């Protein structure tokens, strides 16, 4: 049983925290794939949204590792802070995604439900990451890494095609970033918990 004798240092272990954070980041990316693919199937056919979405994510200002070597060379505290910064940068857009998507004409219920679920689970993941960073960086949770999102007006444009393209772009970017986050966390878990011997 948990802390049966009321031991003073009664807290979740780093291993437990990482197990849960990785399970959640895996799930968040799984959901982002589902909503992205479903949105694309429903609204993307023949509209070539991808061409307009290329290289236009609000988080592209954050320098992120693009291959294994880069990811392994980064100090774990910096990579943790980077993941935390990415999650924070997505908190605001996901809140608006969950509310604005309700206004899309005939949006399937599955897309509406997933948008809400993603926002909830991403917030929960952010909470977990703040706990881990606080634990590892000895209480200090830096919040200098952040990328402001200015995309709300584009989600409310009158022209439907432009508005749908803005939604596509947001989902495309979150799909990519949530995969990066999941990948970096799996790397960090293996490094910090399993001595890079997963």
């Amino acid at each position, binding site marked *: *049983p*948990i*802390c*049966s004798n*009321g031991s003073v240092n*009664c*807290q*979740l272990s780093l291993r*437990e*925290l990482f*197990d*849960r954070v990785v*399970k*959640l980041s*895996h*799930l968040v990316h*799984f*959901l982002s794939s589902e909503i992205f693919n479903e949105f694309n199937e429903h609204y993307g056919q023949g509209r070539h949204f991808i061409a307009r979405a290329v290289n236009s994510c609000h988080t592209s200002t954050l320098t992120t590792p693009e291959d294994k070597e880069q990811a392994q060379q980064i100090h774990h505290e910096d990579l943790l802070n980077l993941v935390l910064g990415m999650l924070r940068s997505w908190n605001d857009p996901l809140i608006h995604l969950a509310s604005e998507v309700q206004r899309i004409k005939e949006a399937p219920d599955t897309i509406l439900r997933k948008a809400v*679920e993603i926002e*909830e*689970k991403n917030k*929960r993941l952010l*909470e*977990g990451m703040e*706990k881990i960073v606080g634990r590892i960086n000895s209480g200090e949770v830096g919040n200098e890494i952040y990328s402001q999102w200015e995309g709300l007006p584009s989600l409310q444009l009158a022209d439907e095609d432009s508005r749908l393209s803005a939604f596509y772009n947001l989902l495309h970017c979150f799909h990519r970033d949530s995969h990066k986050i999941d990948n970096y966390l799996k790397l960090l878990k293996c490094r910090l918990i399993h001595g890079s011997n997963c």
Partner: protein
Amino acid sequence: PPEKPTIIKCRSPEKETFTCWWKPGPDGGQPTNYTLLYSKEGEEQVYECPDYRTAGPNSCYFDKKHTSFWTIYNITVKATNEMGSNISDPHYVDVTYIVQPDPPVNVTLELKKTINRKPYLVLTWSPPPLADVRSGWLTLEYELRLKPEEGEEWETIFVGQQTQYKMFSLNPGKKYIVQIHCKPDHHGSWSEWTSEKYVQIPTDFRVKDM
């Protein structure tokens, strides 16, 4: 004053919310009021139960907003009446460890025959509706048990995450009882067993002599 209450159980059915129940101590017949208080690991702040009603008497229900997976809850219940008050021993809760799913549903049993006319029994079931297994937030494992109707001893078979199972070696002419239950893949506890399902194995269900 009232004797101290005891927190008897905390349970999360789907790893999204959870509920705790307590048992009042003897209160000397005085009208007694119960307050559930909790704090989170590493925090001084004390909170009160967000919802005393949803889960019935002597209970506290924590909805999604009040359920965190990143902390250990330190929970106590205070009994208060005119004569004074008394506090339960602290009860520590890590939500991941108290997940006890509802039983599986849609249990079906079907007698089939292989290509070379070898009969076998196919059991299928579905995860409990509340549990979000599809997205992977909750991964369930299953165990089934069966025994002849008049038999004493259950035979238990762990089937992992599958929701189907083929039974080959069953006795012709016997009537079997089958039940299934489930558990989260890491921590947490087994659900209740499903209600009993019966299947009568026909007498010509002879295993072909090989």
